[in-house]
């Protein structure tokens, strides 16, 4: 039985040997009843700031599309991007470069102490030709990463494409999944408007990496730079989360909230569920929103879930061991009919949860608008975009709101979205900042 009325939930803070965890729960108390109820947790995962981390050596493969559509400014931008990477990696880092169109070629086999002048000369010889077969480049790239990997290395593949791949999507997804299981992360970059963001997003989620939209060749080198900075700051490989559920509890959905909104792919295991949480850096934590559903809640304390986090320990901290941290989420069931039940208001829910959820809902609204559109339901897609626009305006995202409204107008008149608008809204909703102004839940 709860003793304090009208109180909000208290976050759980946990400072472990390596992790700094914080779990904000939507409810500490829920009415005991058979009916299904929602329960949310916003989990922040960061590394302790006070440990002397060492940089992990990179094992990086660049997989670059050189199909005909890459001619001109695009290929030139890629040459500059490669140059940036070569200039900013350390001699201990392993680099390989693969170029692909309908087939793939290893331009630079995986190696340390990269000769910058030689790479520059090699990259200048890349010529545009042929179509785009993603799986060709991906397979060759992964082989190079496998050749260059070591006990301590951070393995990563950066793929840049500007075209649709046809017929090999399933193979690409399987390869991304395999990469994720084998501690090879992926950054998938789409240049321009004519590529499949759904495929790249899924591949990113499966590999524990990310997909990035680059609207102009001018931004290629800058984006390469940002990726290398993030990788250089990483001090561990993938963090794994294992979720053990309490009785009559299920995990409904899980989303990464920061650094950007992304659906987390959760796999079923013998113990419950497992998910990769991506790379953690010295100063870069991540936040995740989990929605649980609980049925048949009885009076008294009940476990919603136990969250176990494991990471391959940062080099130099606990060599060759896993760092592990566990956090238990409980809820107390109370009888809502009991005359001595104090007044409990769920309006005391910490604002961070509805704020995060609002952003997830906006992201999903766009996903559903695209699904409606692809199924020929133009009116439904238009209405979703209009609704999205008004919600975006309400949280202060005026530029994205304007774009969604323009696209809704375009859709109503032509039955189509502009390729540019479609990508800008998709990646714009993913990047919705938690600090957006406006009418958040208070």
């Amino acid at each position, binding site marked *: 039985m709860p003793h304090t009325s009208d109180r909000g939930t208290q976050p759980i803070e946990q400072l472990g040997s390596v992790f700094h965890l914080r779990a904000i729960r939507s409810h500490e108390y829920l*009415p005991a009843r058979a009916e299904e*109820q*929602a329960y949310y947790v916003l989990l922040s995962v960061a590394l302790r700031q006070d440990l002397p981390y060492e940089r992990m050596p990179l094992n990086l493969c660049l997989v670059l599309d050189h199909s005909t559509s890459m001619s001109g400014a695009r290929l030139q931008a890629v040459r500059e991007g490669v140059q940036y990477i070569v200039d900013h990696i350390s001699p201990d880092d392993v680099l390989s470069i693969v170029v692909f169109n309908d087939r793939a070629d290893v331009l630079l086999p995986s190696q340390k102490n990269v000769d910058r002048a030689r790479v520059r000369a090699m990259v200048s010889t890349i010529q545009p030709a042929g179509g785009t077969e993603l799986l060709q480049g991906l397979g060759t790239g992964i082989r190079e990463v496998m050749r260059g990997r070591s006990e301590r290395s951070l393995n990563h593949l950066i793929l840049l494409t500007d075209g649709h791949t046809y017929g090999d999507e399933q193979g690409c997804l399987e390869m991304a999944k395999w990469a994720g299981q084998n501690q090879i992360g992926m950054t998938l970059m789409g240049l321009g408007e004519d590529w499949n963001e759904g495929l790249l997003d899924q591949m990113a989620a499966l590999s524990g990496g990310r997909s990035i939209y680059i609207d102009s060749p001018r931004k290629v080198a800058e984006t390469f730079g940002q990726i290398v900075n993030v990788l250089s700051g990483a001090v561990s490989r993938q963090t794994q989360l294992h979720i053990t559920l309490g009785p009559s509890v299920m995990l409904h959905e899980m989303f990464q909230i920061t650094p950007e909104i992304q659906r987390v792919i959760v796999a079923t295991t013998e113990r419950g569920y497992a998910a990769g949480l991506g790379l953690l850096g010295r100063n870069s934590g991540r936040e995740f929103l989990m929605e649980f559903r609980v049925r048949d809640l009885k009076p008294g304390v009940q476990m919603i879930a136990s969250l176990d986090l494991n990471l391959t320990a940062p080099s130099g901290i606990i060599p060759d061991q896993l760092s592990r941290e566990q956090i238990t989420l409980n809820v107390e069931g109370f009888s809502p009919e009991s005359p001595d039940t104090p007044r*409990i208001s769920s309006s005391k829910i910490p604002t961070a949860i509805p704020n995060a959820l609002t952003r997830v809902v906006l992201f999903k609204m766009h996903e559903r608008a695209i699904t409606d559109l692809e199924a020929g339901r133009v009116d439904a897609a238009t209405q979703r975009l209009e*609704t*999205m626009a008004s919600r975006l305006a309400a949280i202060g995202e005026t530029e994205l709101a304007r774009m969604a*409204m323009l696209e809704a107008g375009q859709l*109503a008149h032509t039955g189509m979205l502009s390729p540019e608008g479609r990508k800008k809204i998709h990646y714009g909703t993913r990047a919705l900042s938690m600090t957006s102004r406006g009418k958040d839940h208070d």
Partner: protein
Amino acid sequence: MIECPNCHARFVANTLVCSECGALLPPEEWGSNAISTEITGEPIESTAESALPPAVRLYMGEETGQSIDVVLDKKVIIGRSDPANQVFPEIDLAPYGGLEKGVSRRHARLSSRRGLIIIEDLASINGTYLNGKRLTPYLPEVVHDGDQIQIGSLPIRVEVL
């Protein structure tokens, strides 16, 4: 289950945000003085004190003498018909200069709850106004007898019947 006050979609108890329209759902309260937001399964309009659904007479424009009567036994859309796109709102303002006056195809919605008359803007481009105040999209407001609403730039006076 709980119901979204804006779009009436239904969700599992304690859901915080409507995934259909993005509205924040009213938090549930328990214990003494609690106000239940749960759906009872009965339509709200069927309570004893409001056996008949409310009805309104809408006077179109400034002193034009034109009016239409609307029974609010269900939600009705105020908008501008667009046959090319198969849009036919229940209250069609096209005959009242809707296009020139900036009326969207699906502009606003009138409904009744617990005997109250509710208006809601549907994220229209040119806005819906109630007694001169622009409505926040999807935020329902109560309309009273004699109130002036404005759809785009078309004024409409409301008489509750």
